[in-house]
């Protein structure tokens, strides 16, 4: 009896709970069969997965729990249709749409006011909910962990698996807690927190782990900031990230189109309140950060971990094996050790992506742009994350601020976060971007990407060079 009682009281982590609540069975081979609550598809791989499923004589087991959006290669120019600048892109859009409709899957299509980047649309429609398992053939699915869900990116074959069986076979990941003390200071954002974590612990820091972000600084973050932070768990190499849902989460979700209502809502909230880590819960690893140490950041290299303060300098060459990677990044980015990053001349500025394209991101950027002009020779683009974000921004007049400053104001989509063969920034063009990846040629052949918060992007667009937004307000 004592043993049983003790076992029942063993402290659990949020991840332990989510895993246990979805465990169908443990397989003989050591893997677990995990129930999947939501599957998301997009036009880049959705059509392939659905066609392949049909070709194998299988179907979608429960289409009501599957959603599809057009985001990856759809054009973002005003007046866009199925035609895209990506060669062959239209076929992906048309075939994904046809296959999804044939299966009875909800499609957030071009022209639908709900259309947008899946990791923006899902929370705003209340599709992701606390405690759900959510998968999508997209590496930034971890974004949705900010709502208290276990959400992770998969490949197309795994997507077929989830569609056909409503489950996935998984080896249980390890667990990590990133405990963030204190509070972010004025001018520091969730993006800067993510880049600080990456700069200190590397782009493999989270590898193989489900990372729970917790602590006073995380509790203080608004929901959209939490989405930004969890988004970059992909760059941290993590299996995914999760944040315990709290009253802010519930208030944010209540009344959203796909969220439960009435008595079912009340019941859901009381269940969701149990979704947290117990005191004394065990984690395989733990990292502690002090939010007060976080300042506006920017990447100087071609990996997200190659980041420093916006008022800092390109780091000196390290010794040992890391030197070669460092040298390659310096050469690619055309920067020198010891050189201040502030003042590097830019050719373009981009605000958008599943990291930073939500209404709060656009409001903060607009506050900097209001009454100012983008520097001559800088191409500046803003791509709202969804039709709903765009409509809200226009209702608040933010579009007029962006346009008056000299920004392009686009239709929703992933846009130039990555190069798909169509639109891109120029060769060796230096771009400051609110996106998540600065890999070689990510935004165009030989394009040099510096990733940062929307504030840093806006300030840099005005200055014509990498700039510290704090100085604009002094």
């Amino acid at each position, binding site marked *: 009896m004592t043993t049983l009682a003790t076992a029942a009281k063993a402290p659990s982590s949020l991840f332990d709970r989510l895993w246990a609540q979805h465990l*169908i069975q443990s*397989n003989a*081979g*050591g*893997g677990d*069969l995990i*129930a999947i*609550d939501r599957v998301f598809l997009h036009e*880049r*791989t959705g*059509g*392939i997965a659905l*066609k*392949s499923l049909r070709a*194998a004589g299988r179907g979608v087991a429960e289409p*009501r*729990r599957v959603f599809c959006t057009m985001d990856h290669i759809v054009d973002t120019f005003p007046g866009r249709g199925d035609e895209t600048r990506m*060669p*062959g892109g239209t*076929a992906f859009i048309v075939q994904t749409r046809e296959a999804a409709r044939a299966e009875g899957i909800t499609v957030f299509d071009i022209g639908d006011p709900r259309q947008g980047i899946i990791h923006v649309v899902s929370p705003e429609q209340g599709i992701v*909910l606390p405690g759900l398992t959510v998968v999508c*053939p*997209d*590496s930034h699915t971890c974004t949705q962990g900010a709502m208290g869900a276990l959400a992770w*990116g*998969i*490949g*197309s*074959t*795994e997507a077929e*698996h989830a569609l*056909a*069986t*409503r*489950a996935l*076979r998984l*080896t249980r990941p390890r667990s990590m807690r990133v405990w963030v003390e204190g509070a972010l200071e004025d001018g520091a954002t969730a993006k800067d927190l993510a880049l600080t974590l990456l700069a200190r612990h590397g*782009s*493999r820091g989270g*590898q*193989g782990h489900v990372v729970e972000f917790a602590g006073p600084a995380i509790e203080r973050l608004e929901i959209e900031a939490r989405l930004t932070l969890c988004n970059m768990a992909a760059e941290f*190499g993590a*299996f995914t990230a999760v944040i315990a849902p709290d009253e802010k989460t519930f208030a944010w979700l209540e009344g959203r189109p*796909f*969220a439960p209502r009435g008595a079912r*809502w009340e*019941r859901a909230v009381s*269940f969701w309140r149990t979704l947290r880590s117990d005191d004394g819960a065990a984690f395989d690893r733990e990292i502690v950060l002090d939010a007060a140490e976080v300042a506006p950041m920017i990447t100087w290299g071609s990996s997200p971990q190659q980041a420093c303060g916006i008022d800092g300098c390109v780091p000196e060459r390290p010794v040992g*094996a890391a030197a070669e*990677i460092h040298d390659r990044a310096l050469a690619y980015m055309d920067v020198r050790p010891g050189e201040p990053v502030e003042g590097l001349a830019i050719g373009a500025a981009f605000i958008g992506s599943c990291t930073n394209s939500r209404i709060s991101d656009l409001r903060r950027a607009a506050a900097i742009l209001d009454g100012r002009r983008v520097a001559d020779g800088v191409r500046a683009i803003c791509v709202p994350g969804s039709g709903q974000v765009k409509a809200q921004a226009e209702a608040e007049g933010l579009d007029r601020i962006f346009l008056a400053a000299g920004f392009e104001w686009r239709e929703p989509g992933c846009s130039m976060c*990555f*190069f*798909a*063969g169509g639109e891109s920034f120029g060769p060796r063009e230096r771009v400051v971007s609110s996106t998540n*990846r600065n*890999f*070689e*040629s*990510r935004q165009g*052949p030989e394009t040099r990407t510096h990733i940062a918060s929307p504030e840093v992007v806006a300030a840099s667009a005005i200055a014509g060079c990498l700039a510290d937004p704090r100085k604009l307000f002094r």
Partner: protein
Amino acid sequence: MDPFVRLTAVALPLVRANIDTDIIIPSREMKSVSKTGLKDGLFAGWRYTEIGGREPRPEFVLNQPGYCDAAILLGGENIGCGSSREHAVWALHEYGFRSVIAPSFNPIFYNNCVRNGLAPVVLPLEVITALAEQVEAGSGTAQVTVDLDALEVTGPDGRGHPFSLAEEDRVALINGYDAIDLTLLHRDAIDGFIAQDRDLRPWVYL
């Protein structure tokens, strides 16, 4: 999926950290709504002289004599990072690769390898660097063996290097199992789980 038990083949030395999926198959090379037609786009950015072109860049190792038949990839840390696109694995497979040996893998890329019959092998960086040096010394004629039965990689010098692989993944690779078929054997368990869960968490079921 073809079963993979043992393979002796030419290995491509590409021991560089953070080879992301866009390097393995650039997005612009994913031209049709299909899992095939990708092998010419494999490593396109490094392999050809121009974006979208097909003129081989002689410096790139895959274009050098002896390496064009490579079936084993010797990679660096964090291989397959970035986009989750399975096209990276489809392109490798279509070209003829059947195994990737690296010190660490992106988890999505790792799973995609297993699901497509490419054996993912984790070995220490020093071991992979030594294997790459032996392969380069033999100008592509030196062969490497990956054995999933013995869970051992054998280098051109005949030295064995044991590795570990999750048993479920090993069984799937050796038998060429289709994971969906395996899971559908447990359909009753899935239905039973969902029936109970509908009572516990009714809001999940739209």
